[in-house]
């Protein structure tokens, strides 16, 4: 079980969180024209990376905030966590 540092609550066990996928995907702006390909890329196409990966988790049984977590998908090492409004650098 992972130990995830919620930027709001501190270190908590994984079972308080739920996984939310790739954190680098940006939702296309509402009302803007978009090609089929770009839309498919947003909705469906994901890279299954091995290694460092920015991903979303929600602290569901805690502060309910969505957070960004940089995790190694192979080793589960967590390098950094950010609040929802903090930019991935």
């Amino acid at each position, binding site marked *: 079980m992972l130990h995830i540092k919620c930027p709001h609550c501190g270190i908590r066990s994984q079972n308080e969180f739920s996984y939310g996928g790739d954190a680098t995907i940006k939702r296309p702006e509402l009302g803007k024209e978009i090609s089929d390909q770009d839309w498919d890329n947003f909705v469906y196409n994901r890279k299954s990376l091995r290694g460092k990966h920015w991903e979303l988790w929600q602290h569901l049984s805690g502060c309910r905030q*969505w957070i960004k977590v940089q995790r190694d998908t192979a080793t589960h090492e967590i390098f950094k966590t950010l609040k929802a409004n903090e930019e991935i650098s």
Partner: protein
Amino acid sequence: MTQSFRLESGGLINRDKKISFKFNGKNYFGYEGDTLASALIANGVHLIGRSFKYHRPRGFFGAGVDEPYAIVQLYRNGETEPNIKATEQELFEGLEAKSVNCWPSVNFDIGAINNFLKIFLPAGFYYKTFMWPKSFWYKIYEPFIRRAAGLGTASIKHDKERYEHKYEYCDLLITGSGPSGLASAYSAAKNGAKVILAEDKSRFGGTLLTSEVNIGNQSGKEWADSIISELKEMPNVTVKNRSQVFGYYDHNMLVMSERISDHLPKTKKFHPKQRLWYIRAKEVLISSGSIERPIVFGNNDTPGVMLSSAAKEYMKVYGVLVGKKPLVFTNNDSGYETAIEFKKNGIDPIILDTRKEPQSEIIEEAKNMNINIKNSYVVVAAQGYKKVKSADVAKISDNKEELGSIENIECDCICVSGFWTPTIHLASQSGNKTKFNEDIDAFVPGISKQNEKTLGAANGIYTLEETLKDSFEKGNLLSKKITNNENKVSFPNVVEKKSTVHDKFWCVPLPKGKNYKRFLDFQNDVAVSDIEIALKEGYRSIEHVKRYTTLGMATDQGKTSNLNGLQLVSKIENKVVPAVGHTTFRPPYSPVSIGAIVGREVGKHSKPTRKSPMHSWHEKNNAVFVDAGVWLRPRYYKRGEENLFEASKREAKNVRTNVGVCDVTTLGKIDIKGPDAAELLNRVYTNAWLKLPVGKARYGVMLREDGIVMDDGTTTRISENHYHMTTTTAQAANVLSHLEYYLQLVWPELNVNVVSTTEQWAGAAIAGPKSREVLKKLFPKSDVSNEGLPFMGYMEADLFGVKAKIFRISFSGELAYEVNVESDNGYFMWEKIIEAGEEFGIQPYGTEALSTLRIEMGHVAGSELDGRTIPYDNSLEGLISKKKDFIGKRSLSRKAFAAEDRQKIVGVIPLDKKTSIPEGSHLVKDSNAPLPNPKLGYISASCWSVEHDNPFSLAILKDGKNMIGKKLFVMSPLKNKVIPVEIVSSHYVDPKGERVRS
């Protein structure tokens, strides 16, 4: 039976307390402190079971967790448990055990015929033999394999025992209480660190209990006892015996299983049987010691062949002789310690040492005791079927390839020592990159990935002095880093006998003309010849060889077999062992009972039960409940002898003719506040929300980004910037997360707050043509007329002094209202509704009637919004705004979603108007078409229409738009039903929707 193999004195057992037990129906005695294994050996019982594949006789091989053979079916306090190691099971009064894997009895086993057919059961036998024909699998092969395999029978009874889970945090977790565990725990504890010391066995001390050493002028055992009693007194230390740390997981979390009651005849009141500890440790010190490895020779699985260290442990701990004419076969000094112990107890052993001229203090001592030592000698084969009777031995050449002439030595046990294998399972599980240590011919931990260090024998350190020094130091350093406190322990004086190097010899060659089976894996019956076949057939990766031959795949996970298997592969392949590499170690280190893993989350405790504030009223009024997610909801209210069908029909009919009341507390409720609340709703729902006036409700559908319907419900504008959203019971949590996702990550600029209020409000739906009359009586001061409270209207009102919210919304298609009050007033509200409704014939209705009402209305619910349908499929396309964008809109223009013959919801009626249609059935054009019959759609929900008094179903049907009036067939192969049906509109009742507006 007399304990003919029990020594007169000695051992750590309590001879004052006799314990009676039963094995295979026979009565025996042992002593308190015995294991089932030691007590059986004391009674001269060596035949314990039959082997897995060949059903060869099996005895005892070890004295603890590494035991591959002695697995029994245990009976305790009316319960039974399979796969119990006799070497681990402590004896208790009334214990009963039986052999497994033998039929009809352990002495005469029919499966042993496999042994004589062994030519037919080589490596990969199962793969090769049971491959084809395919049709044989189900009826012939599978039952055969199932019968032949398995090590005992699981109970099918409910387990009455209680199992607990515990979460713990500590600075240092130390796994094993041998010299390294004790020393490191002691120095860390002295520095004030929070320490957990876990010992798998019942006694602390590990090898200190059996080795002839002296620490600080005390015997090993005395020193261990004094350290443990001091540790037990320290408030920062938790000392646990009978506790196996079996898994090392991510982020330094380890799991330990504590056997609290397994050694007792009966679990004490209020005690659990076992407790699973989830331990998050800052640092882990692995002090799990090492396991002696066997030397491979002919018939080395015969009962009476066992590890030399086990023979010593039986003598020193249990006062039991494993034999009276022992042969010790060794390639190192450890065998001498066992021989010396035999000699001290008046037994004359013979030592066969593979080495030519070894010299050390221990060997000197053996010589001085006049023990018969044969150098450059090996055991070629054990003789005897159910027990060793003699051994064929021979001199071996210096290059270890040529055998001299065979001599036969009479003996009743062969104690083998092929040196020691560090127990690196936990280190390997933690991600440690292990490395091969040439000096000890085994893998040891290398580069750590997590905060873990390995000590003593587990790290390949085999002298006590070095072990203690290293362990005191590591315990001190790691704890100092955490506590910033140093309280150094002075190092005790250590006396131990020096040993010399071992011989890298592990497998005795076959003598000319003999084809003895030489076993590597004792539990899975994998012999040298099996590995040779696998390699001949082209298997190269050790992981493949393992799976093909099942080497190391038994419940003992190859604790005694892995390294010899690797040696063999590397020898045949002409590679060095590290190049072959070891297979992956996976948790659990040793089998853990399912009960411990599940803990208390069984039956009703497997999930929380949510009840509405009106629950006790439902109970009092004969409600039959149904699980709706974690909620308990009344399914129907039983009257007299009614069944589900009759009751729900009555309840639904009463809604259509009079008035009914339904507990709708479970609906998800989300409070939405903020100046941008309307904008949020406008983006998450498919229809327009910006112009909804205060005091009005609107029905909405929300999609996922892929265009699939996520949920539906009504949202009411309570005031300018305040909305009350309802969701389906099932999707309540997901919808809240969904809103939070968009507010926090996608549109943080929206000034809106959302919070779940599901449990804050109790809800009652009052539905039926007479519902307004009921409302008038409940709220005499409010204008609830059609003008005062029109369809989709909302008002706040006073319910006899209680604040209430009234929503004029309908799920049943009738004139209907939903009344919400604060949860604490829910019961009061419900009673008032029943009271007021009495004169109008009000009846409570459950989920079954609720379903009937919505199905005949064609109102979609969970079975249609099943994560596979878009708005069009549910005839909800009218709710899609063309003017604005919203979540998932772009996906709706995808080709498949816009197809002309897209699936759509329809109604289905059986032509005979009698046969009810099973949910999940398929719709087909021709019921006699060859299989696979093309499926046109599926039945999503079925009911008995109370309006029309015949069966009615909803279906999602391809090109549903153009199918109305067509005749099709419903097929349910599961229920073996073929029903001719007609396709009709999904709105079977009040298609114009006049009633809700009346």
